[in-house]
């Protein structure tokens, strides 16, 4: 019975040994010479990429469409040839020394996505990009975008306050509102929806997520400062016909998700995605008299349509509607309690959101590199909320229009995109008696030029000028450079400017759950910042298994920032324009390696130095740790029948907004150091899959998460000083059912 195991092992050993020999024996100048041409016109394609299948060894074609690959780099006798605007092709080159590859144009503009299990850091994009694939998404608890980042080192997920339990993302040590969130490359969930936006996209809606660190393209507007997160939603044409996901956890929170797709006609396909989650169980494990997590019910519907007409017209439509109600606060709090001395402290909120988008592209017949794109989107977002005795209501109406033309100058080594945009943003907020309102109308023009020397250098230079009705002309230049020293050693530089109008109350809702009074010292100006950074990527192969080492450094310098000052006065949060310096320095080093077949290890170290001038004094931003470690172990049996994943994170000491007015041990100057541990095991069958997992397995909880919890209407009450987990260990289980 056991005999087959050693035999298999010997076989594996022999194979590994043979592979080692092939690597070690110096290549006897064996080369593959090739040429890439357009299938219909036979014209050479310049800057197309040719890569040995299953490796990262590749080159780009030169001005005559030719390329040369070293046979010694091959692990299989196949090459993958791809080019923007063309269908990628895999070509068998066994026994050949020359090859001509003819590519056919595709119908839609799509960025080249290199498929591969381990290559999560793209070798091709000019920006420092990472991909969270669908396979990665299934590794963490389902159903909410926040959880999707748990197995990724570049994006941090934090809890906003101790009452709502809402999660936010951080990049480069900066708040999530400085990261541009897009869905299918259309800006989404901006403005007033920012604090709770991660809840509004279910994990089951998502095909993959691209994370771009630092400055990206100018095409999506001027808002991004620390980076961009692009969520690719499922494609009606390619996704499963039926996908059902059910989830439940030990706090008695339940999630149900259903996707149904259909090819309605040869040209039309559609996808309907439904999500509901519900928590009705009051939990207070830290015994502070407050619910650890707000109760809530959330229903979300997303309907997407795709239209395809030959190779020229492609159009996508999407409509999304959601409704969410939440209730948090003291364990005995009931909805709508009258104001009085016997009143319990509670928070309530009701949110409604309706949004739509359309993307249409036209590719010129016979010119796959030339296309026109139109993008329109609209949002209506409305909420009413109550924090103790404070009412906070808001409404946002947004319309966004963009037009992009893409073509080449002479040949495909020089491509450019030009376009125009119009943004309409209408905000109304009311906090107790104060009313804040503004209407932004921003027409803009933009251009981006991409140079590709077809060997090892890509330069993307872009700029946009916007004519803001409230803040005048805004000029936004951005630059990305990528240089491949060797195909496996890549340097990138990103620099540029970002601009955004802050929504101080909604970006600091956490402080509404405190006794702090919101004070505005002056008329607030828009935020402006420069971001400069670079990264170094080294791909390697050790013992026949791939690995990558990535390190990056980013410096963000604010010219103006809306400072949310909790330092100066313990009873206030005051907002004013930056006077002095404010910056973020972030360093990250990450190592990924497949230690054994099917066993992946990712480790990362991160250093943050984030400082802002508060009331004339330069101080560390509260609740951001200087040092962090991240380790992720992933194990999968062949064909992913069994998968296991374990992620641990270490958080160093964080400075807290120490306030003189408070008293007692709860008012500490800095946080504890602590670890978190998450894990999941899943088993796949033909049509379905079951998973069991746990979050915060070490059961670490922030002590005294709510200051002054015993007297919530008193002056010392503050639930916004959250730097660690509030809920303890959570165990969950679920299942997925798919019909292809």
């Amino acid at each position, binding site marked *: *019975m*056991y005999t087959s*195991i050693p035999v298999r092992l010997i076989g594996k050993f022999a194979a590994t040994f043979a592979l080692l020999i092939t690597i070690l024996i110096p290549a006897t100048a064996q080369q593959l010479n090739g040429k890439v041409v357009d299938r219909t016109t036979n014209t050479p394609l310049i800057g197309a990429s040719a890569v040995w*299948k299953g490796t990262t060894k590749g080159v780009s074609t030169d001005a005559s469409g030719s390329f040369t690959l070293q046979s010694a780099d091959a692990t*299989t006798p*196949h090459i993958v040839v791809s080019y923007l605007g063309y*269908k*990628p*092709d*895999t*070509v*068998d080159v066994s026994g050949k020394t020359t090859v001509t590859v003819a590519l056919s144009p595709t119908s839609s503009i799509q960025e080249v996505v290199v498929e591969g299990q381990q290559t999560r850091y793209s070798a091709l994009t000019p920006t420092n990009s990472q991909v969270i694939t669908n396979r990665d998404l299934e590794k963490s608890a389902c159903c909410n975008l926040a959880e999707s980042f748990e197995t990724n080192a570049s994006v941090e997920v934090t809890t906003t306050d101790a009452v709502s339990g809402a999660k936010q993302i951080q990049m480069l040590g900066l708040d999530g509102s400085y990261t541009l969130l897009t869905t299918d490359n259309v800006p989404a969930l901006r403005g007033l929806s920012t604090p709770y936006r991660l809840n509004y996209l279910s994990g089951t809606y998502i095909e993959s997520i691209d994370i771009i660190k630092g400055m990206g393209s100018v095409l999506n507007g001027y808002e991004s400062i620390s980076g961009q997160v692009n969520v690719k939603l499922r494609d009606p*044409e*390619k996704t499963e016909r039926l996908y059902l996901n059910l989830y439940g956890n030990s706090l008695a929170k339940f999630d149900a998700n259903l996707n149904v797709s259909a*090819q309605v006609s040869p040209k039309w396909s559609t996808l309907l995605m439904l999500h509901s989650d519900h928590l009705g169980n009051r939990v207070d494990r830290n015994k502070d008299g407050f619910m650890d997590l707000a109760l809530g019910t959330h229903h979300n519907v997303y309907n997407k349509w795709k239209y395809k007409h030959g190779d020229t017209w492609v159009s996508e439509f999407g409509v999304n509607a959601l409704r969410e109600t939440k209730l948090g606060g003291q364990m005995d709090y009931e909805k709508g309690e009258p104001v009085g001395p016997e009143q319990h402290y509670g928070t309530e909120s009701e949110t409604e959101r309706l949004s739509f988008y359309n993307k249409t592209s036209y590719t010129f017949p016979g010119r796959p590199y030339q296309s026109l794109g139109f993008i329109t989107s609209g949002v209506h977002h409305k909420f009413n909320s109550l924090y103790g005795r404070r009412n906070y209501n808001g409404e946002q109406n947004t319309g966004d229009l963009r037009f992009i033309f893409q073509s080449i100058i002479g040949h495909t080594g020089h491509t450019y995109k030009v376009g125009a945009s119009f943004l309409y943003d209408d905000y109304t907020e009311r906090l107790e008696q104060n009313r804040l309102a503004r209407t932004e109308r921003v027409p803009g023009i933009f251009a981006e030029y991409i140079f590709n020397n077809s060997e090892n250098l890509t330069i993307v230079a872009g700029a946009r000028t916007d004519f803001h009705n409230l803040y005048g002309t805004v000029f936004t230049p951005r630059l990305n450079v990528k240089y491949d020293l060797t195909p496996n050693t890549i340097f990138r530089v990103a620099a540029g400017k970002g601009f955004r109008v802050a929504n101080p109350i909604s970006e600091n809702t956490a402080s509404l759950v405190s006794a702090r009074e919101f004070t505005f010292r002056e008329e607030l100006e828009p935020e402006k910042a420069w971001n400069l950074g670079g990264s170094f990527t080294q791909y390697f192969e050790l013992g026949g298994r791939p690995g990558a080492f990535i390190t990056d450094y980013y410096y963000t310098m604010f010219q103006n920032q809306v400072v949310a000052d909790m330092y100066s006065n313990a009873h206030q949060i005051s907002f004013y324009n930056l006077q002095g310096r404010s910056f973020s320095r972030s360093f990250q080093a990450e190592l990924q390696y497949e230690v054994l077949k099917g066993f992946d290890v990712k480790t990362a170290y991160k250093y943050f130095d984030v400082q802002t001038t508060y009331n004339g004094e330069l101080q560390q931003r509260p609740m951001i740790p200087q040092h962090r470690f991240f380790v992720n172990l992933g194990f999968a*049996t*062949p*064909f992913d*029948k*069994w998968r*296991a994943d374990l992620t641990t994170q270490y958080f160093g000491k964080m400075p807290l907004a120490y306030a003189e007015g408070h008293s007692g041990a709860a008012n500490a100057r800095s946080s504890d150091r602590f670890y978190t541990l998450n894990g999941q*095991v899943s088993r*796949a*069958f*033909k049509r379905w899959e079951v998973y069991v997992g746990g979050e915060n*397995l070490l059961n670490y909880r922030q002590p005294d998460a709510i200051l002054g919890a015993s007297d919530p209407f008193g002056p010392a009450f503050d639930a916004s000083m959250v730097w660690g987990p509030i809920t303890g260990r959570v165990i969950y289980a679920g299942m997925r059912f798919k019909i*292809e």
Partner: protein
Amino acid sequence: MKSLQNLGVALLVFFTTLSVQAQNGNEKTIQIKTSAVCDMCKKSLEKAMAYEKGVKSSTLDVDSKMLTVTFDSKKTNEDKIKKAVNDTGYDADDKPATPRAYNKLDDCCRKEAGAH
């Protein structure tokens, strides 16, 4: 931590049990001519086979397009396996691929792409 350790041990035992497969006399090997044209097809076909009830192992030779499948004849049969190949988007001997599955294949896996 104790409970974690126990979980680890339980998992280990589980995996060991899985890798020890009972041998029996019902094993049968067949060859099917498919319409698979590239390495990507190989991956998706072999994966589909791995999830098919009763299938022990499978290999696709891309050059000859021959899929070799070893299965337990008590649990499945040749027709069921061919059906599974069709549902993945490929022809199996004389049986054509399920149209919907074929349409969802990646461009490089389609028959028109030709052998490459």
